[in-house]
């Protein structure tokens, strides 16, 4: 998926993403250029420095993995409901 909001994955979207990821039992990780971070950690998400147009990959492992990936993709694609 691609970060589509103009301001990138900054504090606000990262907070929303981490909140959402925390609701699932599965471990969700986000990948960017060989860097893996936990989707539950705002600090780690922010270190991705994912500006507008950055390509990210989501991976989830656990009982609700599919639901988690779907929900997160939806959030990212809706530009985090912020714009």
């Amino acid at each position, binding site marked *: 998926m691609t970060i589509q909001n103009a301001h990138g994955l900054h504090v606000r979207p990262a907070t929303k993403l981490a909140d959402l990821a925390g609701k699932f039992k599965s471990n969700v990780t986000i990948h960017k250029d060989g860097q893996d971070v936990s989707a539950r*950690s*705002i600090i780690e998400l922010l270190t991705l420095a994912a500006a*507008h147009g950055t390509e990210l990959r989501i991976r989830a492992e656990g009982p609700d993995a599919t639901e988690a990936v779907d929900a997160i993709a939806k959030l990212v694609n809706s530009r985090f409901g*912020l714009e």
Partner: protein
Amino acid sequence: MQILKGTPVSPGIVIGEAFLLDFEEFRMPRRAVEPEAIEAEVQRFENAVDRVVAEISEDVKRLEESMPDGDLHLIFNGHIAIVRELVPTVVDSIRKYRFTPEHAVSKKIRQTIKLLTSRDDPSGFAARIVADFTDVEKRLLRVLFGRRGDSKSGAAGKSIVFARDLTPSQTMALDRTKILGFVTEFGGKTSHTAILARAHGIPAVVGIADVTREVSGGDTVIVDGTKGILIVEPDGETLKKYRALEKSFISFEKRTAEEMRAQPSETRDGIAVALLANIELPEEAKGAREFGAGGIGLFRTEFLYFDARNLPTEKEQFEKYRSVLQAMDGRPVTIRALDIGADKDVAGIASPERNPFLGLRGIRLLFERMDLFRTQLRAVLRASAFGKARLMFPMISTLEEVKQAKAIVADVREELDAEGASFDPEMPIGVMIEVPSAAIAADILCSEADFLSIGTNDLVQYVMAVDRVNEKIAPLYQPGHPAVLRLLRSVIDAGARAERPVAMCGEMSGDPLFTALLLGFGLRSFSVVPSAIPEVKKVLRSVTIAEAKQIAQDALALPDAHQVVEYLTEKTKRIIPELF
């Protein structure tokens, strides 16, 4: 618990939270956490987190109220989430590596920031995220270092200020109502911090090497300004003991102040003695009156030049001087002309010198900077129309200087006359006696000076050849030295013979230890820091002139400062036992 010893410079006992003034530099305390203190440090960190979360929540609330449609507050919610996320990592490193919370927080955030700045950032996106982390770090460190709420809430608690040294401009910037005590690494009894602390009755200990590394912001500390002791993180028993002492000290101070306020300033045999106040800021005039000051014996004017980036205008100065004259309501106010030299870094007026205490300072500098001098004289003269103003010149060493300064005053008077401005044509003009040549030949200066004011801080320093802020030679700074006593008596005698009033405005005049001695020398005008007025009054009301003369005679017969101080302590102890 850690007990450190320094120089006591302002008496009193106070217990409070440490606040490190130099925190902007974020100097991390080097101290590793003692194993038994680990849990307390974890607790301190968790408290700090709670406080920061509460602070940010307040900001969020304010934003929601002021901009209900915006989503800016979401950023702050993000900051709260970041703070919470830091907790396990930081707690872990306090426990595992015995880091202080300050160090642990800083380390974690620095690591994160390093990650962000390590790669290319053409859009500047990473830089913006770095700013978020820096903001969170600042908030946490500010609370951990003990600076809370600062300008924002105005509700910040009172604290004990720690600094390496306090420059005059730093002390000007402090909100004095929020300071419980002072502790510094440098300085002696007559350093700026010490004078300021005594003026406000704030306990202070100076000269504790490396103290700002030993103490972390937010530590509970006890300052004993009477004995010169600092206790960091006291145990329960010590705390209990000092709480009782703190209470009894406060009540003694208050009792003395209340007891003395309405009493006339006179000796037991009814000889009137002027008890005046030394002030640094116009706002202090009110406090001086509350302590029962009969006037202002020394109004330092350096504050005007520390505060302003630009030099003060005549109008600014005039208004300040007038406000003090009006606050004193007809009581005398002695304004001292600007007294700076190369040791005081003031608005770049004085340039560095190899030997600043013997250099271009006081009146010598004013002659070089005629623009500053004339502007100040105009302001003082114009203010003299609003009360009983007196003017004195600092650092006078020759009669020529007095004549020259007076000639300039006369010239300025003519100028004002021509402009039709009003002023007091009779305003007395006196000189500070603080240079040995002026003290030894005080009788000669009396031919030109309307009054003398002995500045003991500098006089003792010059007589003993001891830099008063150099802690290595601090024991040699001896106001009780026989040479100093003889010189003081001779100045007071010279004034009496020439019928010129003699006042004393140095630290010595506010030290109850010397009150009886100075009365015995014939001194009838004491100018002291406002908070010292009640104690000095108590001593002078307890002695007769005959007794004071006897004390003076006995003290003069002693061979060294040590014995003089011992003798005077014994005598004063009988009058105010609570002081010792």
